[in-house]
């Protein structure tokens, strides 16, 4: 058993370090220059460090899947604060979908521009009356003289107000039954038929938008997969396995912040971290965090070695959600009066107290997660009414 990637990867890590040494930071030290970022990114792609799963002809570096190498690249690029060719997370969803289901033309037209950030994507799945239950989508698309005409409304579309395009599930076959009537369409949001309305959250931030389609148009051939098969197109993109280590870092840093907070702020006259109740609660949270961490390493190792990750695979999201809620409650106890001041030094913790809730909503509520665990990991019977699609 070993936690590192082991000697067989040391050479690779050296290569990556050497590459970084040579290319980042830029000579003039200007880390913000778009031009530098672009040059670096192209060099990194050329070396096979970024966009590894994307064919060269679409602007990627076309490497064999290898979580270990990908993870080493992520680690070292992060340490070096080098541009990691990161594209908006929704872009991360559309690229593999296009690669798996798209036509050569679609891939050629969309992927490279997405990688370079020229195209920014919004997801168009949820609707006011279809939250977890995508089968009851109503937004409709009709093929009229060579183009799709789209009418309806999407909601919870992350960053749509900053996006150029949307990949959307649209009902194109009104007569087909629920799942079979849906197609996966690509839509340019920069047209008169599209109205985007950002939704303010309880934290005052605006991450999500409502998107209204009023005879919006999109070319006939901007459909991904067959008509009425949009359902299967989306589901397939959900299965792309990834190392959970990226997600971990978020929980770990939130906990580090909490410990820092507990050291700095007094509670009943001494630093909160010396208050036995809080001290013990911090240790209990750390115990869960360690469980998550090493089970994630274990799962990653399984993927690296092509073994089944077992029960754990359905669990990280709900586990992290519960951890975030637990962490933010301790923070609440520590910040005390600061809990009321939305312009104060503890705003971050007020926001986390609230955002820890949105975690249990976004991308499948916690109850949906529980169904996933119960059905996929424990093999319990599905709800008769199929609360898991």
């Amino acid at each position, binding site marked *: 058993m070993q936690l590192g990637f082991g000697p067989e990867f040391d050479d690779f890590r050296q290569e990556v370090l050497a590459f970084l040494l040579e290319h980042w930071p830029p000579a003039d030290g200007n880390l913000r220059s778009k031009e530098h970022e672009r040059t670096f990114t192209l060099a990194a792609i050329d070396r096979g460090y970024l966009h590894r799963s994307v064919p060269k002809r679409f602007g990627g570096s076309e490497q064999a899947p290898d979580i270990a190498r990908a993870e080493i690249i992520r680690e070292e690029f992060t340490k070096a604060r080098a541009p990691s060719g990161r594209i908006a997370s929704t872009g991360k969803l559309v690229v593999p979908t296009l690669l798996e289901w798209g036509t050569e033309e679609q891939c050629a037209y969309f992927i490279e521009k997405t990688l370079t950030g020229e195209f920014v994507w919004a997801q168009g799945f949820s609707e006011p009356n279809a939250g977890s239950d995508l089968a009851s989508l109503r937004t409709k698309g009709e093929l009229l003289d060579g183009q799709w005409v789209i009418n309806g409304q999407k909601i919870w579309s992350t960053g749509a107000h900053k996006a150029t395009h949307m990949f959307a599930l649209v009902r194109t076959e009104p007569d087909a039954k629920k799942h079979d009537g849906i197609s996966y369409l690509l839509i340019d949001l920069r047209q008169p038929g599209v109205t985007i309305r950002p*939704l303010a959250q309880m934290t005052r931030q605006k991450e999500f938008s409502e998107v209204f389609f009023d005879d919006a148009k999109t070319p006939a051939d901007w459909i991904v997969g067959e008509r009425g098969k949009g359902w299967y197109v989306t589901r397939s993109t959900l299965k792309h396995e990834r190392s959970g280590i990226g997600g971990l870092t978020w929980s770990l840093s939130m906990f580090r912040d909490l410990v820092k907070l507990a050291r700095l702020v007094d509670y009943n006259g001494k630093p909160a971290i010396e208050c036995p109740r809080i001290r013990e609660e911090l240790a209990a949270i750390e115990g869960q965090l360690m469980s998550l961490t090493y089970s994630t390493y274990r799962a990653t190792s399984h993927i690296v070695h092509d073994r089944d990750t077992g029960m754990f695979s359905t669990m990280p999201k709900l586990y992290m959600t519960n951890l975030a809620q637990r962490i933010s409650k301790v923070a609440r106890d520590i910040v005390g009066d600061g809990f009321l001041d939305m312009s104060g030094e503890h705003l971050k913790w007020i926001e986390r107290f609230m955002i820890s809730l949105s975690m249990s909503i976004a991308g499948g509520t916690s109850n949906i997660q529980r169904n996933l665990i119960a059905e996929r990991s424990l093999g319990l019977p599905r709800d008769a009414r199929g609360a898991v699609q």
Partner: protein
Amino acid sequence: MNFLLSDDQQAFLDAIRPVLNDRCDSQQVHKIFDGDDPYDTALWSHLVAMGIPAIMIDKAHGGLGLQLLDLAIIAELLGEFAAPVPFFGNAIGALAIQLAGSAEQRANWLPLLATGERLATIAFGEGKGRWLPGEWEVPGGNSISGTKVLVPNAAEADLIIVGTRDGLALVERGAGYKTARTDSADRTRRLDIVTFDGTASEMMPGDGATIDRLIDATATLLAADAFGGATRCLERTVDYAKVREQYGQPIGAFQGLKHQLANMALEIEPSRGLYWFAAHAWDDLPDKARHAAAQAKAHCTDVYLQATRDMVEAHGGIGFTWEHDAHIYMKRAMFDWTWLGQPSLHRLRAADLAGW
């Protein structure tokens, strides 16, 4: 045994509820929450007209001469509607004068407070969780200097009852103090930082025991508001679960959510008896009042804050938006939870008071 509201109490509630239904609906609350008005003056003047500021003021001074329980059930009702009015600070301010004021102070102020011609508030907190008399460091006297935080509607108040090392001080508007509005989470009850700097003030004769009574009443009103808010959160969430459909049926038919709502109700409903008892003890069982008030404040405000979280989760995305009422209740719950000190503080006080 008659642990119930009296017919008069019920009648009072029945008279006020329609006013709130008409003038304090969700839309109106959002309007005040998002706007610049410090509170809903129109609604407040209706509530004043119905005698709400007069509830506990002696009849001799133009009040209704009622008890804390009568005040607390109104606090519950206003909490249920998340009413954006200066009820809380004003009620405790008036009670302070009633309990701790000199004959002259009572004669000067109580009649004006009973009619709502004057608005009072209270300045207790000194920051970093210092809320209680034993922790007050601002020195008393006929001129006071120091800073008080999280003071309800100080900018609007005509007089401020200030907790000092030496007792309660009465400071009139215009006596020369600075107020700075806090960007407080709960915009239905605005808060200020108040800086006194050689500000003219009048000490009130009330002794430590009297001030403790005032603190207990404050804790009880916060518990009552919390209970009212929590019950509304439950009601709203249950209603939503009945109408919101997913997978072809109301989400409230899914046993998973159903049991979560049952657990939510199980936490909320029984806490009614606790705040009732705290108010009743304050009125009639003085030796039980301190402990009961500490327990009510701790338990009811904890339950409220969790209830607002449960409400958001059950509503899904819509419950997380600014447009929905959920965040207004959550922020009121944050107010009730924080103001006068968090539950943990009051539980440890309750343990001491229980003689453990």
